[in-house]
């Protein structure tokens, strides 16, 4: 993996993904504005701009909800993996829509000649001690800053430069951004607009994201298999219990996960972390003789955890053995790229 800068490597899938995303955003905002102006024609220019603020704000909230739902959905069903493939572009689009929401808000103040009021609102420090009356725009600005950092570091250059664990940790701030956005709406527009749609949108959105994460977490814990047996090997199960061209995931005593793959009568154990974005390698399949990460299709050989040429990524491997008819894994990691796969005699 190189940390040298390369422009986004476009392929047909990415173009189709982004085209559908853009069409969805335009359709959502267009429908919102059409319905809004049809039901209540704008009284004046600020009222007109207010509709745009709401349209882009609701769209950004919906997009954030979807972005946060993609991870657990892909864990629960591989049908959702195509959504995960280009999730970073979804995140960048979300930042753009949220930034336009802020842009219209600034324009709303501008057309009324009240731009200084925005600053006064943000700098009335006493209001920060209140709950109802809290400067809710500050919460939105904080969320936008987090989205900006994430969008700015979304490129593979930053992924390589920061290393996947650090990059992933930074991008977990999206949860904080989502919480800030929910409170931004709850302490903002929900206080002035009595429409039941606003609390409904917040409860449904936050409820969906929470329920999906709990469901994915419970399933993941249930799937974590393997038990440590004396002297330190982890029992996986009979060879046939590992799906052909698939894997079973076991957890080492230190908490890290190991993916035990079977390809016919060959068995090999590797770290469950893809070298690209630390994706769950054990949820992938063996395609064209290579273990293929379900997230972005990075491939590794079963034999030694090395990516096929010309790629240079190497994964940690683990020793495996067949003992009394059971596949067992030694949880002590081998240096990345060490050959460790074995053959077993079919019954």
């Amino acid at each position, binding site marked *: 993996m190189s940390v040298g800068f390369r422009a986004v490597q476009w392929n047909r899938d990415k173009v189709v993904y982004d085209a559908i995303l853009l069409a969805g955003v335009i359709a959502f905002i267009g429908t919102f504005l059409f319905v809004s102006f049809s039901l209540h024609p704008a009284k004046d220019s600020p009222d007109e701009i207010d509709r745009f603020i709401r349209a882009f704000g609701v769209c950004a909230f919906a997009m954030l909800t979807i972005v946060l739902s993609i991870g657990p959905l892909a864990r629960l069903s591989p049908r959702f993996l195509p959504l995960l493939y280009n999730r970073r572009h979804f995140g960048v689009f979300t930042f753009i829509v949220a930034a336009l929401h802020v842009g219209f808000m600034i324009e709303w103040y501008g057309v009324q000649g009240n731009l200084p009021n925005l600053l006064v609102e943000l700098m009335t420090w006493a209001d920060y001690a209140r*709950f*109802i009356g809290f400067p809710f725009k500050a919460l939105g600005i904080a969320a936008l800053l987090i989205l900006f950092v994430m969008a700015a570091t979304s490129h593979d250059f930053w992924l390589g430069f920061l290393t996947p*664990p650090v990059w*992933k*940790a930074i991008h*977990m701030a999206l*949860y*904080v951004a989502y*919480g800030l956005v*929910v*409170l931004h709406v*709850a*302490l903002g527009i*929900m*206080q002035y607009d*009595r429409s039941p749609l606003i*609390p409904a949108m*917040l*409860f449904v959105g*936050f409820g969906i994201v*929470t329920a999906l*994460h709990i469901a994915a*977490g419970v399933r993941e814990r249930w799937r974590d298999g393997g038990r440590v047996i004396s002297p330190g090997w982890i029992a996986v199960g009979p060879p046939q219990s590992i799906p052909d061209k698939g894997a079973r995931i076991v957890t080492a005593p*230190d*908490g*890290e996960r190991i993916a035990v793959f079977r390809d016919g009568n060959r068995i090999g154990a590797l770290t469950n*972390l893809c070298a690209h974005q*630390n994706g*769950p390698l054990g949820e992938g399949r063996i395609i064209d003789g290579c273990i293929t990460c379900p997230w972005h299709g990075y491939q590794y050989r079963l034999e030694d955890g090395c990516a096929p040429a010309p790629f240079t990524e190497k994964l940690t491997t683990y020793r495996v053995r067949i003992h009394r008819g059971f596949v067992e894994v030694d949880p002590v990691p081998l240096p990345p790229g060490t050959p460790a796969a074995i053959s077993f005699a079919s019954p």
Partner: protein
Amino acid sequence: MTRRHRLMHRLIWPVLAVIVTLGLASALVLRPPPPNVQEQAK
């Protein structure tokens, strides 16, 4: 996800869920009544 990420995930989520749920519920309960209700009360 690495073990540390899972730990972070398990720490962040419950805390965030409690803060947001309490904040959202409080904001809903404590919001001021609509103007016409306020006028009637006067």
